[in-house]
């Protein structure tokens, strides 16, 4: 589904990732861990085409990401839902409008949009906050809204960058349950986190593969987690 083969990424004089290979199979669940600055966000950005590898080959759904033009890249991103750490909302638009943004940009019908939207916001527990503006939302609400936006187009892959970074334990468990639920619906999930307790908590709910980025390379994490 998404595959990185011997990918390296250099920014300025520094190599952030070196000869990394990764395969996200359909319906799989992955954690990507490592210390801050290890390159987790960079790897995620490579997966959804926000960055292009300096060397190596990246494919998504059988397409070489480096060869996609901007229109093709837009279509690719509709198949990959991303939960950003800072959520990336448009502050002048309501929560409902922000969550519906992927539907709007992909030209989906208005009726389908309203139904999908309400159902989705109820699923993440935000059914009563439709008209709130992003600055009015709590950290947990923002993360759940970001998750709702990431999945509204029913993407094949969900990438989450530190989704529990700004929320308390209870909220992080709630978000984890939502992501596990998505995986049970057949979605491929990759969560980048430095929160090892989240990974431990997930082990009882889902069969997850845990990858660790260390010294610019990716390794399968051992039983020490």
């Amino acid at each position, binding site marked *: 589904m998404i595959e990185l083969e011997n990918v390296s990424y250099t920014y300025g004089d520094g190599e952030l990732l070196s000869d990394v290979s990764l395969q996200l199979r359909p319906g799989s669940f992955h954690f990507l861990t490592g210390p801050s600055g290890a390159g987790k966000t960079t790897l995620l950005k490579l997966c*959804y085409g*926000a960055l292009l590898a300096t060397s190596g080959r990246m494919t998504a759904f059988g397409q070489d990401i480096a060869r996609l033009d*901007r*229109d093709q890249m*837009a*279509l690719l*991103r*509709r198949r990959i839902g*991303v939960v*950003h750490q800072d959520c*990336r*909302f*448009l502050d*002048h*638009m309501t929560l409902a*409008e922000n969550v*519906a*943004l*992927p539907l*709007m*940009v*992909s030209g989906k019908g*208005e009726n389908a949009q309203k139904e999908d939207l309400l159902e989705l916001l109820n699923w993440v527990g935000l059914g009563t906050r439709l008209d709130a503006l992003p600055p009015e939302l709590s950290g947990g609400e923002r993360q759940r809204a970001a998750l709702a*936006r990431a999945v509204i*187009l029913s993407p094949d892959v969900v990438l989450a960058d530190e989704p529990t970074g700004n929320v308390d334990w209870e909220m992080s468990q709630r978000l984890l349950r939502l992501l596990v639920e998505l995986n049970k619906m057949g979605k491929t999930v990759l969560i980048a986190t430095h929160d090892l307790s989240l990974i431990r908590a997930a082990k009882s709910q889902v069969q997850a593969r845990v990858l660790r980025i260390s010294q610019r390379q990716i390794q399968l994490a051992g039983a020490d987690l």
Partner: protein
Amino acid sequence: MNKGTIRSMLVRDKRADRVVPPSGYTAQLTLFVSGAMAFLAVFALALSLASGRLADRWASELAGAATLRINAPAEQLSAQTEAALTVLTQTPGVASARALTAEEQVALLSPWFGPDLPLDTLPIPQLIEIIEGEPGLDTAGLRLRLGAEVPGAVLDDHSRWREPLVEAANSLRRLGWVSILLIGGATAAMITLAANASLAANAQIIEVLRLVGARDRFIASAFVRRFTYRAFFGALVGVLFGMTGVLLLPEASVEGGFLTGLGFQGVGWLLPALIPLLGAAVAFLATWTAAVRKLKELS
């Protein structure tokens, strides 16, 4: 860009238009620029049309006429006038010829000497008005014959002063059109700057839209629609003010000369209605070009 693309860009989509924040100084700038430029364009158009009418009128009124002046001593004036009229009636290309009456000559001189001019006491030449007909007047041949038969006759076919006047009026007309083109260019430049500023200020919004799968066309359309409609409404207001200004100008009068004839006539009144449409078209192209370039830069 095909017709469908242009239509889809201009058809209002309230939800899609919401992605661009509604306020900002670029909004006021676009409205003001398009309004001010449309206001100026109305006057440039009025100037151009009035000059065109003047050039046409001068060209047509003076082209088919000539004047014969009889400079002779008082006792010979009447005889030479008669002789000249005889020559003229026999000349091919003269549709009619008539000597101006004393009252007409006084009327011609009254702007300089007043209405109570004692014409009979002054050595005023007699003027004969000649209206040309088919096959056209052979002025060189007529001058030769008049020189032989009417020694005091001087033929003036108006070409000496008609051509510079018509050329001056045509130059004014061209100046009006050049002004309109410059106004269009300046509008495009300023709207391009405003669109660039808006796109740069909203770079984060563009990034978010791209992350959720927006194509460049969707993003560009949101900005293009915003600027096109703003330019249209700004220009509409500018045209209304401009037309009010033109209506308040003094009406054409003999005393006022050319300057009082500025304005529109007949279907000319409809032409300013095109200015908002042209303003919108200029804004559309300027914003589209700016958006495409900026989106490439931001990718």
